[in-house]
């Protein structure tokens, strides 16, 4: 062992192993060749450019890259399109051999490699030569630590390859490998960290957390799954957004500060991110479908297929049907971008009847049925005169009843006409479908910034018809809704109403109730749910309007509310029927 002790190579190696525990012996039979991976993590993330690979200049660039090459390429090719911010570059592998005449007579032999070979050959050569140079400078002594330290420091500014603008150019052939490495390294760093989840308030390891792609807030996967699964199940799409308070506000502030004022920051979460969290494929699928459906439904110009068993939407350029989960994201985004044009399109589309004939051709995206968007017959060519289908005639009694009920107890959103029924609270409403703020009493648009102005005195002293009426109908509109409504006579919803439940309320009772009404305070709809007796909570509403049918109507309507997610347009007349009648009554040639 005295021999070992004397051997300076062993002394040096044992101290190197102590300092860099990740050092490894390259070959089992050679104790004096070691390898070490040195991470290249610049102090600030660098912007890496991948110049478009023109077939002929790809080669020379790869061969003689380096600072000179970068400058030249930068000059000839000013449009760096493909740039990415990278925090971790693939690490450098050092291979050091301490020969048997080291350190006295022989410098260490050094080989440097990277995978992929993104480092320009010149830089590699220079780094390799630094070993012998330092060894000389130290007076031919043990140089191992000094050298490794030197390479580590050089790695911090990426060996001087980064220009003053913080950009680095790399051969595009290595693009995927480099970006991949960066993602993995970032992920590894993230997983080592600990975060306090803002929802469950527990500290969680990064590996159990998810960082929101758009805003960077971190929550634990469990809470995100719980929340989003629940929101998507309930159809509350607007809730599928970052869970941090004021997140969107802060980002829009940051954006307007940086001068980009044009667009609101994206608040919803892309399906692909939901899958990353991860959420079930099924759930994400539902999210995509629902999102697409609300998008269609909030567009008044959407045309639906007349086939009664189909009811699919007609193909449109604006709303692309999501194909699988990935494409849906693109369609979402395009939908968002075009939102600005929507009003535009709506005003154009208003006079639907005067659409140029060729544009009346609609093709169902579900069943590919080609039909006329005006008369809802199968497509008859451009040169046939047709008339729009008739509306709101020949409704069945049920449909009529539903319509009546909706007229009485719902208020349409002024933007998308989705009916809203208030269950409780004040008359400032926000449409569940398109988020428009409106007044429940008169359906007027309200300024989201100051919605209550409508119920107050205007600055000019004038008042609207809804002055001081913010809290009218506080307990809900209709006697089958409200805070305390426990399900009522109709629940569970899908059950068919037994004939007996369709109440025969003696007219005297109603009159009696009405008289009561005049004398007493309005009662909250709560207590007596068992007996489906007609109750009226709206002063000034004519009894005749409601009629004896009312309790039954409510049930129907409630069923509909529940069905609304699944089936569209319950109360629409079957256009098919219409078409048949129309054909009989007119003399149109069907081609």
């Amino acid at each position: 062992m005295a021999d070992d002790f004397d051997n300076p190579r062993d002394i040096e190696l044992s101290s190197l192993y102590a300092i860099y525990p990740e050092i490894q012996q390259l070959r089992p039979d050679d104790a004096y060749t070691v390898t070490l991976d040195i991470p290249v993590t610049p102090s600030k993330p660098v912007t890496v450019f991948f110049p478009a690979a023109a077939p002929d200049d790809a080669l020379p660039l790869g061969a003689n890259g380096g600072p000179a090459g970068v400058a030249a390429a930068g000059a000839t090719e000013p449009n760096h399109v493909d740039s990415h911010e990278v925090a971790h570059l693939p690490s450098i592998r050092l291979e050091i051999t301490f020969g048997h005449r080291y350190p006295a007579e022989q410098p260490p032999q050094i080989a440097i490699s990277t995978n992929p070979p993104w480092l320009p050959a010149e830089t590699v050569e220079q780094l390799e030569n630094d070993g012998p140079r330092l060894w000389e400078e130290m007076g031919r002594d043990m140089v191992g630590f000094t050298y490794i330290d030197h390479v580590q420091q050089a790695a911090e500014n990426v060996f001087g390859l980064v220009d003053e603008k913080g950009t680095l150019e790399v051969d595009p052939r290595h693009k995927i490998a480099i970006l991949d490495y960066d993602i993995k390294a970032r992920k590894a760093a993230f997983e080592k960290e600990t975060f306090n989840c803002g929802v469950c308030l527990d500290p969680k390891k990064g590996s159990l957390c998810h960082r929101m792609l758009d805003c960077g807030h971190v929550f634990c996967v469990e809470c995100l799954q719980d929340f989003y699964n629940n929101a998507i199940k309930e159809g509350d799409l607007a809730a599928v957004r970052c869970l941090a308070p004021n997140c969107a506000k802060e980002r829009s502030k940051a954006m307007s500060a940086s001068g980009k004022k044009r667009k609101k920051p994206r608040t919803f979460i892309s399906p692909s991110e939901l899958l990353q969290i991860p959420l079930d494929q099924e759930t994400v699928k539902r999210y995509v479908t629902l999102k697409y459906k609300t998008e269609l439904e909030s567009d008044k110009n959407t045309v639906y297929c007349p086939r009664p068993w189909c009811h699919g939407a007609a193909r449109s350029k604006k709303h692309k049907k999501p194909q699988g989960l990935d494409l849906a994201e693109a369609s979402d985004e395009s939908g968002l971008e075009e939102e600005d044009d929507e009003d535009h399109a709506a005003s154009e589309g208003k006079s639907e009847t005067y659409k140029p004939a060729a544009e009346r051709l609609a093709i169902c995206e579900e069943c590919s049925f080609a039909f006329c968007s005006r008369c809802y017959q199968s497509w008859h060519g451009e040169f046939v005169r047709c008339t729009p289908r008739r509306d709101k005639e020949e409704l069945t009694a049920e449909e009529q009843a539903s319509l009546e009920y909706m007229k009485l107890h719902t208020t349409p959103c002024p933007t998308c006409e989705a009916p809203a029924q208030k269950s409780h609270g004040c008359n400032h409403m926000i449409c569940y479908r398109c988020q428009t703020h409106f007044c429940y009493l008169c359906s007027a648009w309200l300024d989201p910034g100051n919605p209550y102005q409508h119920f107050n005195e205007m600055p000019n002293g004038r008042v609207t018809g809804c002055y001081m009426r913010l809290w009218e109908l506080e307990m809900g509109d209709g006697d089958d809704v409200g805070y305390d409504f426990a399900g009522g006579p109709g629940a569970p919803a899908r059950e068919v109403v037994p004939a007996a439940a369709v109440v025969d309320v003696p007219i005297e009772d109603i009159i009696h109730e009405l008289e009561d009404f005049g004398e007493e305070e309005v009662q909250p709809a709560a207590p007596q749910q068992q007996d489906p007796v007609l109750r009226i909570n709206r002063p000034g509403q004519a009894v005749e309007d409601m009629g004896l049918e009312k309790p039954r109507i409510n049930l129907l309507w409630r069923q509909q509310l529940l069905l609304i997610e699944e089936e569209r347009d319950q109360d629409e007349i079957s256009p098919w029927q219409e078409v048949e009648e129309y054909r009989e009554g007119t003399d149109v040639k069907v081609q």
Partner: protein
Amino acid sequence: MASQKRIAKELAECTSSPPQGMTIKLPNDSDIHKWHVTLEGPEGTVYAGGKFGIIVSLPTDYPFKAPSITFSTRIYHPNVTNDSLGNICLGLLKPENWKPSSRLSSVLEAVRALLVEPQPDDPLEARIADEYRQDRKEFDKNARSYVQRYAKGPVKFESGGGESGGGSTSNTGGGGN
């Protein structure tokens, strides 16, 4: 459930370092979904010297759904209904604004901030808001008299219990008093 654990945490945090001027108690130790908060009227405001009861009800799916917060002590304020319900208009409690990572302590602080600085432009009681803007003296007088009448003495937490006065659940907003 995760909900219980989080509530327990928040409760511990709020009892050990309660928001300014507040004390928090559970009316029923086995139910951490209902909190009784006693808020001292902030100094330098018309509410100073009064003690207000606030009832915090946490839904079972808290924090996914917003808590509901009501005053059980009547208070003369543009943003609190002038009845025995004591509903509060607070932006961050609206379902569409609620974020699961909002904390109760910040909600309670927001309630207190509302007493320090009423928001007459976003009122629940339009008449009181108008009075606040146009006749501040009268408003101050009314608010103080409410404090004298309702917010002195032991704090009550049962809402609507036996309180007399104009408070009915009538439908006409802002009509009270």
